[in-house]
């Protein structure tokens, strides 16, 4: 089985992109990835493209061939949709396809336009990742679903809003020098605590923003990289995916995320590592509580310990296990269908040493990406390793 190497990565800045069409955003990210990789566009075997709400935000379905065309590709293209984990799944399927020998070069990533919608429309659009009959019709929104999980966590393990505020503060601090981040500004614990409530106990600064953006990752087989003299020091050595009941009401527990645990176990086994080997991670912090659930589900912290990890400095840039050095979804932004690709791109840059925050992980060899859909009814985990 071949090793899957990351030949190049490309991102657009995350934020509000006004009248720019989604196809142009994805083209920009793709061209950046090709330039980074030094791979010919004609060598691409297929496009694996992630997108969640394009039919609502841009009235555009059937996006994959449109995006292939925009990126200058003539290969087959398929859209993957797993809510906010869409690009993560697109990359996972690319890894599996290259390993199978069916392809040598795959462009994977995603794009989302969200600022075309007003807040109410965006809230409704994001909510379609939840159970329409039993959650959306009952008044559940994306933030309120995570608020239900946060309350359940507090009840089971303890914790308070100030613990969550430290996660937001940490991720904003990490984003300051990231040229692709939506919010390159620091915030204080007091600002986070004083922000208006969205769905208690979550307030505005507990939530990721509404974001436009695109990500592209050019994956190649080991053989292709060698034959074409491609410099690709970072590999995806492990991939895993897990699932859960869509509706919170049907789950055994709301203070844990079994889908993440399943995905992590599979990815770590695939890579031949354990959680102890992970140097740093980019995790799906669509809300501050989601980072807590993620780092516990990934086995980086024991259940009940994740809540205070940022407050105790354990997950900050110079802590024992830096989490979301990119700024995370919270500060870098969350164009949902692109996020999984963005996480892979950021870890690649961090491991290669060309990320503004690479100094924080200059001895690191293993980074983990965690991309979740909805309230973690789906989760994708990837292990990335850099050549010594």
């Amino acid at each position, binding site marked *: 089985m071949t090793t899957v190497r990351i030949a190049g990565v490309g991102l657009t800045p995350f934020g509000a992109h006004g009248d720019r069409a989604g196809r142009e955003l994805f083209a920009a990210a793709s061209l950046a990835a090709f330039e980074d990789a030094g791979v010919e566009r004609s060598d691409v075997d297929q496009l694996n493209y992630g997108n969640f709400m394009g039919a609502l935000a841009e009235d555009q379905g059937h996006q994959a061939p449109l995006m292939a065309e925009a990126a200058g590709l003539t290969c087959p293209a398929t859209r993957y949709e797993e809510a906010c984990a869409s690009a993560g799944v697109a990359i996972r399927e690319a890894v599996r396809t290259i390993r199978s020998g069916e392809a040598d070069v795959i462009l994977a990533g995603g794009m989302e336009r969200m600022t075309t919608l007003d*807040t*109410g*429309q965006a*809230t*409704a659009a994001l*909510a379609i990742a939840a159970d329409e*009959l*039993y*959650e*959306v*019709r*009952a*008044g*559940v*929104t994306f*933030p*309120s679903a995570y*608020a*239900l*999980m*946060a*309350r*359940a966590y507090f*009840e089971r393990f303890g914790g308070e809003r100030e613990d969550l505020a430290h996660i937001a503060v940490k991720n904003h601090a990490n984003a300051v020098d990231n040229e692709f981040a939506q919010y390159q500004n620091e915030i204080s614990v007091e600002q986070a605590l004083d922000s*208006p*409530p*969205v*769905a*208690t*106990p*979550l307030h505005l600064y507990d939530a990721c923003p509404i974001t436009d953006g695109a990500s592209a990752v050019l994956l190649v087989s080991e053989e292709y990289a060698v034959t074409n003299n491609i410099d690709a020091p970072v590999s995806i050595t492990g991939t895993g995916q897990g699932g859960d*009941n869509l*509706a*919170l*009401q*049907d789950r055994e527990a*709301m203070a844990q995320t079994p889908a993440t645990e399943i995905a992590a176990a599979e990815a770590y086994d695939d890579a031949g590592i354990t959680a102890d080997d992970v140097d740093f991670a980019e995790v799906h912090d669509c809300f501050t509580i989601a980072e807590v659930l993620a780092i516990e589900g990934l086995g980086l912290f024991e259940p009940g310990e994740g809540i205070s990890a940022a407050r105790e400095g354990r997950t900050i840039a110079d802590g024992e296990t830096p989490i979301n050095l990119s700024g995370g979804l919270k500060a870098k932004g969350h164009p949902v269908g692109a996020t999984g690709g963005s996480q892979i791109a950021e870890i690649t840059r961090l491991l290669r040493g060309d990320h503004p925050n690479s100094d924080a992980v200059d001895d690191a060899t293993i980074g983990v990406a965690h991309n979740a859909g909805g309230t973690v009814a789906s989760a994708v985990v990837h292990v990335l390793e850099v050549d010594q």
Partner: protein
Amino acid sequence: MTHHTHDEAATHDEWLDAIESGEGFYLRSPEGDGSLPPRRVCPRSGSTDLTRELLPETGTIETYTVVHVGATKFADDTPYISAVVDFGPVGLTGIVRGVDLDAVGVGDEMTVTVERRETTDDRVVVFRPA
């Protein structure tokens, strides 16, 4: 209670009708697992032999949130309490009414009914103090 075949699997609307008339039900597998319609397969046991059983009269709040920013279709309902209530074999999600926003708590005992949203007049699952 009623044994249903594939031709008479309950719909979500029928389930709401039943709650509205005070005869709320859930679907029970031979293994004792509960689920809610529409179901052909019990998501926990995998059984296709599902029977309708009466919902317990009361449940307890498992988790809740006060929603200040709602979707467009709930804009006039905000702020409202959203909760998951544990009814034993099944959990239900709905809006808590009849309790002050700052007086709700995990473990509170609730009954379930069906009322109307303030924004759209659509039906919504509502919990009220037992």
